[in-house]
């Protein structure tokens, strides 16, 4: 959009706000281009000034000491090897506490499902792993629960978009039990039909629970709208998908993807690496390798205009807002610059520009933050905010203007320096528990980033210069073409959105989340 055109849009939208009589038809305006300072309910200027002046021009305010210098992370001495069947093993020994955690990552998840035939299969498969096993010892679901509970350990299996995992944490003295249970779950699950109904109920309840949580509901709609029906990230499991998941499909998924050459085993904690080698060989050495289907790759197209989805839940006194657009992959060369730039924009709580402007200055939200994800395929840039139903438009205007300003000018040198100080000092926090180190290593592996990424994270962040941060802001932020999902009281929100001329759709919160399913429903003649 040219500058002139934007000014026209700006004037039109501002006028629309001023009077509903001049409302534009929906779709006639393609972006939120209202002048930044627009704010009909500014805080009382007098009181504000009195308070602000208290700290003005003072020489005795507390200043922060110089920030810490970025350094390479001192990792404990790692052990890494690969079994003959291809299973990669990473061991992070930590002796301070007598605990040990095992995690097996399988490189398959929702991305490896098929929308029509087995949506939800990765999740269901993982959940069934601890519902019955046969190895050296046959165990029912209840026997597995009793075994792990009796030592006070935890045992879990789950699936996500990019991967599935099985994990077990115990006191070091119970290491053998953990290995045995995990080995049986991965190599010898029995998928008992009799256990499947309970899991189906869990899935149905999970689907129902979405409607009780405005944040989850907004997220599901945002993903569906942004990623669309062809990208698994945009798929939404609905109740009618659940009965399609037969035992055969679970077994087929397990056989195809649960293979040692498609897995990484991470061990962290109080272990004896020399003994562990033999134990791991005995537990996983007989796991049969096999060719695993190639993973599909997913790319996203940019949005071509701003559009708004209003999800009406009349009992809500507050609106949840998700605003965003296409992001980048974790392995993208601009990822560090984008993350640092985003820290300044909306990733640093009270220090962020969004929080300072939209909450502190304008009082429009309780909280506002933004993220660039760290994902295997193109992810999203997302702003999350919550506000009173009546303030939605004001909050959107302020947010988009902050993004626009960042896109135009990038962060300042001072802001970047503060961000670097934050990452240099805080990076070790996540890695204080041994399992945190193991997870970071396996996560980096999954995204093709390697150990170097984990060790040099703070150094990489410190190496981002002003030009790179500016490039990230200028090329990755797209304030004129954003997807907006708002979950709140529809009438109050529509009143604000309709006159702006933006393209928008209003739906009820119980409507199908998938755009395709809603379209299908509309085509059908309504039942009597």
């Amino acid at each position, binding site marked *: 959009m040219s500058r002139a055109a934007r000014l026209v849009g700006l004037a039109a939208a501002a006028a629309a706000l001023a009077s509903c009589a001049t409302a534009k038809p929906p779709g006639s305006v393609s972006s939120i281009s209202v002048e930044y300072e627009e704010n009909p309910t500014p805080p*009382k200027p007098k*009181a504000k000034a009195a*308070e602000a002046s*208290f*700290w003005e021009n003072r020489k005795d305010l*507390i*200043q922060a*000491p110089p*920030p*810490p210098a970025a350094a390479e992370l001192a990792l404990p001495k790692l052990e890494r090897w690969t079994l003959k069947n291809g299973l990669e093993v990473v061991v992070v020994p930590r002796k*301070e506490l*007598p605990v040990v955690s095992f995690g097996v990552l399988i490189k398959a998840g929702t991305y490896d499902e098929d929308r029509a035939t087995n949506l939800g299969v990765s999740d269901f498969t993982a959940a069934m792993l601890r519902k019955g096993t046969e190895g050296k010892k046959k165990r029912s*679901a*209840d026997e597995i*629960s009793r075994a792990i*509970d*009796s*030592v006070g350990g935890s045992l879990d299996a789950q699936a996500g*978009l990019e991967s599935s995992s099985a994990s077990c*944490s*115990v*006191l070091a*003295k119970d290491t053998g039990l953990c290995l045995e249970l995990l080995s049986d779950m991965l190599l010898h699950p029995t998928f008992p039909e009799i256990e499947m*109904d309970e899991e189906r109920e*869990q*899935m149905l*309840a999970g689907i129902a*629970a*979405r*409607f009780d*949580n*405005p944040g989850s509901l907004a997220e599901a709609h945002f993903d569906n709208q942004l990623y669309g029906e062809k990208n698994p990230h945009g*798929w939404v*499991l609905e109740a009618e998908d659940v009965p399609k998941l037969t035992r055969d499909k679970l077994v087929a998924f397990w056989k195809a993807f649960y293979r040692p050459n498609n897995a990484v085993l991470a061990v962290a904690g109080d272990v004896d690496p020399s003994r562990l080698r033999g134990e791991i060989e005995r537990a996983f050495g007989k796991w049969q390798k096999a060719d695993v289907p190639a993973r599909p790759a997913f790319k996203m197209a940019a949005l071509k205009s701003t559009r708004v989805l209003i999800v009406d839940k*009349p*009992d*809500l*006194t*507050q609106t949840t807002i998700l605003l965003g657009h296409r992001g980048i992959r974790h392995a993208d060369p601009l990822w560090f610059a984008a993350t640092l730039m985003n820290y300044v924009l909306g990733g*640093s*709580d*009270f*220090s962020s520009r969004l929080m300072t402007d939209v*909450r*502190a200055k304008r009082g429009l939200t*309780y*909280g506002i933050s933004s993220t660039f994800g760290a994902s295997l395929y193109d992810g999203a840039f997302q702003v999350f905010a*919550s506000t*009173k139903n009546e303030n939605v438009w004001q909050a959107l205007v302020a947010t988009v203007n902050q993004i626009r300003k960042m896109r135009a000018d990038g962060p300042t040198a001072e802001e970047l320096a*503060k961000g670097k100080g934050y*990452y*240099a*000092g*805080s990076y*070790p926090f996540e890695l*204080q528990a*041994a399992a945190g180190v193991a997870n970071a290593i396996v996560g980096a592996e999954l995204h093709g980033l390697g150990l170097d990424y984990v060790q040099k994270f703070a150094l990489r962040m410190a190496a981002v210069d002003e030009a790179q941060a500016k490039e990230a802001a200028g090329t990755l932020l797209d304030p004129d073409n954003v997807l907006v999902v708002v979950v709140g009281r529809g009438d109050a929100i529509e009143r604000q959105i309709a006159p702006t001329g933006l393209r928008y759709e209003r739906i*009820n919160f*119980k*409507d199908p989340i998938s755009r395709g399913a809603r379209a299908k429903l509309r085509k059908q003649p309504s039942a009597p």
Partner: protein
Amino acid sequence: MPSRLRAWALAAAGLALAGAPALAPARALARPAPKGSVAPKVDIKQWKLANGLEVLFLADHKAPIATVQVFYHVGSKDEHVGIRGVAHMFEHMMFKGSEHVPPEDHARLLKEVGGQVNAFTTEDVTAYHDTVPPSYVGFAMQLEAERMRHLKLFPGTIDSERKVVEEEKRLRVDNNPVGKAIERFRALAYAKHPYAWTPIGTIEDLEKVTPEDCQKFYDAYYQPNNATLIVVGDLDEAEVRKLSEQHFGPVPRGPAPPRNSVEEPAQTAPRRDTLTLEVQLPITVAGYHVPRAGDGDVPALEVLAAVLSGGESSRLHQRLVRKDKLAIAAGGLVESMEDSGLFLAYAAFLPVRDPAKVRQAIYDELARARAQPISADELEKAKSQLAASYIFGLQTVDGVATDLGEYQYVHGDWREFAKGAARYMAVTAADVTRVARKYLVESNLTELTLQPGAAPGGASTPPANGPPAGAPAGAPAKPEGGK
């Protein structure tokens, strides 16, 4: 993908158990120390400054980090009708500027050096966390000492923060069915005691809070002699002693803080209610008054909670989820409070299930705990779980510090944390039966069922006239269980 329901249900239940949704940290089963040689030595150093500030320090050299936490012995139980929510609002005001620190700069300045800053308010304590690289512990202390006594309470700032707190209440309570259920449950369970409301308070009272109320509250409770400074991390004792004296030493001692002496009258008859909301997953909660956290009966109650709720082999999960297939999640726990607490048993279930049957199954299990002793295996398992959970809890410096602070004021002594499992290891099966018989009785019961309202669903356009609001399932309070 939707996350697995079990995770959701447990989180929802966790909320119900935690008291104030997301204001309080998850108050999980208290963590005892393990038995035997497995227990790592938790060598906590303690000293007091001349102004009454107590200091706790635990060296932990696992990673180059440290946490500085200041716990004030004040929470929503120090409020009264008219200022409900002021303790939590005060937590917000602590970030809004002091003599030498402009609004929001406390968090900003610490972020610049890699710090992470947080705060929470419960019924009994208000806590401030700064987790930083070890070389900035002195800086974090300087900022905490500053706001301990030098806050600037401007009327305009109070007004704008009041709005923020009201938005927080909308987010956490008003738009969250579980949050609403907790509010109702507390009001039902406590007739007189301030535990009748949660730390988020009421909008009605928040609207009325004046700058004078705030100043009075600050001067009464934010004093060194009403606080504990807790440092856990990669430092040595001499350094922490020096820094704490340097920064907090000059703060003058304040007057002794007033204490709320409201006693909750003994409950003599069961209280039952239902809350109808447009909710997809009903929940039922049964609560029983139990003594304060520091009471000698609490360890046995915690073992009982583990037997009922620890893992998928536990009694409530086995009965309600596995055997009867009534619920998607079920559990129980002791909600430990400085004054009288609650023992809670709960279940979340699909709307197609009969709530009366769900409740009956819970009451059957509680009756079984009263009727016969738990087995030796169950006792052993519960103790193993409590012991392991304690050790897992030692993995993060911020987790340990928060536990220490909670023990200090909620249980009445930080030494209870260091003592750990010893208090559980002495519990016998007979103790468990005894406390079940003593507290889990019908006259001591508060029961709340959150049920889906007969609200319009499914269609894009709600019908012009919503279905009648009648026939709320389970509304008639049938005398069930609890005997």
